[in-house]
Structures are given as C-alpha cells and as structure tokens.
C-alpha cells in the first residue's frame, strides 16, 4: 500500500531555518504527524524560520489547508515564522473559489524567494 511507504515527511535544518517539502499525497495522519515533527524540531534546533514547500501538492482540501495554517500559528507561538512556498496556480485558484483562507501565513512563489523572504522576516524580528 502507498501509505506504508511514506510514514514521515522529512524536516531538514539548514542554517537558522527548517525546510520541509511535501512530496507525497497527504493523508490526515501524515499531515498531523508533520505538525508534531515540525514543532519538536523547532524546540530541538532553535530554528528561527520555517519553510513549507508545497510544489508537489496537487490537491489541497480544507482539512490539509487548516493543518498548514495551524502549523504556522503554532510555530509562531514558539517564535518561528513560516513561509509557504511553491503553490501551484490551479491550487491557488481552487483555494480562492472554495473560500479557504491562508490567514496568518506568509507565502512566496518558490523555495529561493521563500528563503529570501524568511531571512528578511527573521532579520526584521531581531532588530
């Protein structure tokens, strides 16, 4: 079964930032597991920023969207800013038409722009 092959989504630390790239079809438990892993990693690493790459996601329903928004909120409470990167045009269209809002979550076109943005946000916080 496909779900057996991917029990975890890796959360990588690069400098002051955590980066996670969602490359598989997200089911609920995987999304909630990612939430736990990110929060644990924040505490463990003293990261200052978090980037979630959704380039490979082809469908974002209301549950997964809510989990992503909540990850950003929880990270924020722990002092970590989140930038969501790589949103596909078809998903952006669907999210807006559906009425799902990414409240309180910063976004950037791709990973490179996301890294620039998170560096700026973190620098501004430190001043």
């Amino acid at each position: 079964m496909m779900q057996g092959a991917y029990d975890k989504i890796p959360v990588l630390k690069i400098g002051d930032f955590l980066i996670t790239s969602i490359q598989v079809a997200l089911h609920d438990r995987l999304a909630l597991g990612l939430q736990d892993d990110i929060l644990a990693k924040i505490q463990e690493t003293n990261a200052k920023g978090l980037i979630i790459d959704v380039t490979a996601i082809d469908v974002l329903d209301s549950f997964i969207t809510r989990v992503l928004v909540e990850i950003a909120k929880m990270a924020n409470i722990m002092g970590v800013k989140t930038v969501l990167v790589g949103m596909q045009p078809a998903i952006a269209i669907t999210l807006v038409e559906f009425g799902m809002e990414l409240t309180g979550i910063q976004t950037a076109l791709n990973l490179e722009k996301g890294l620039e943005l998170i560096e700026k946000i973190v620098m501004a916080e430190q001043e």
Partner: protein
Amino acid sequence: MSDAEETIPIKDEYAIVAARSAGKTISSKCGFGLVDQTRISTAISELARNILVYAVTGTVYIREVAADGKHGIEVVAEDHGPGIVNLDLAMTDGHTTGGGLGAGLPGTKRLMDEFDIISAVGEGTTVTVRKWL
C-alpha cells in the same frame, strides 16, 4: 468514447486520498484541464471527508456523464448516516457542526457546475455534483 467509472468505499482517511486521486484520473480522461481537475478533486475530497466525519462510512461514485449534448463528470457521495437537520444552515458559509472550516458544502458547490443534496434525518445524505466540459 469509453466510459470511465469508479466506486470508492469511504471507511477511513486513506479512502479520501484514493477518491481524490480517482477524481484526478477520471477528470483527466474526460478531457478536463488542470484547473478543473483540481477543482473536481478538491470537491471529491470534501465530500468524502464529510462522509467520514458525519456518517463514518459511505460511498463515492465518480463517472463520466453525457446529457443534452454536454459531456462531463458526475460525483455522487452517498451515506446512511444521521442526515442533515438543517440543510439551509449546512449550505451557509462558516457554519459547521463537525469542527471543520464550515466551508465544505458551499465551497464544494462553488467549485462545480451543478450541486444537488438530498438528506433525511436518520436515513442519510446523498450529494450529487457535476461539472461540464
């Protein structure tokens, strides 16, 4: 034209992933573009999740349809759960009894061309949505 059709029993969260992936495959086979495939798969994901949250089990049927010279896709989400007490309220943005966003049904309706819902308390709910090419 070969008719594409799939029946997905909804009994756990993995079935939601299976349903939306079937939606993607069938809508692509029907000739829908990427944006419509995404709208259709998102709608299927919402309907399948409603079954799981409110009725625990049910079935999603996805099929290619043709009517009045039109050609498209039809999704039927059927359960024998508790039914919906107030349909008007369920179709209102922001209303939820399931701890979700409260955008499921009205949002799904906006993503599709046709939306029908039949629900009887104690008997169950059937939602039928269609999108035309």
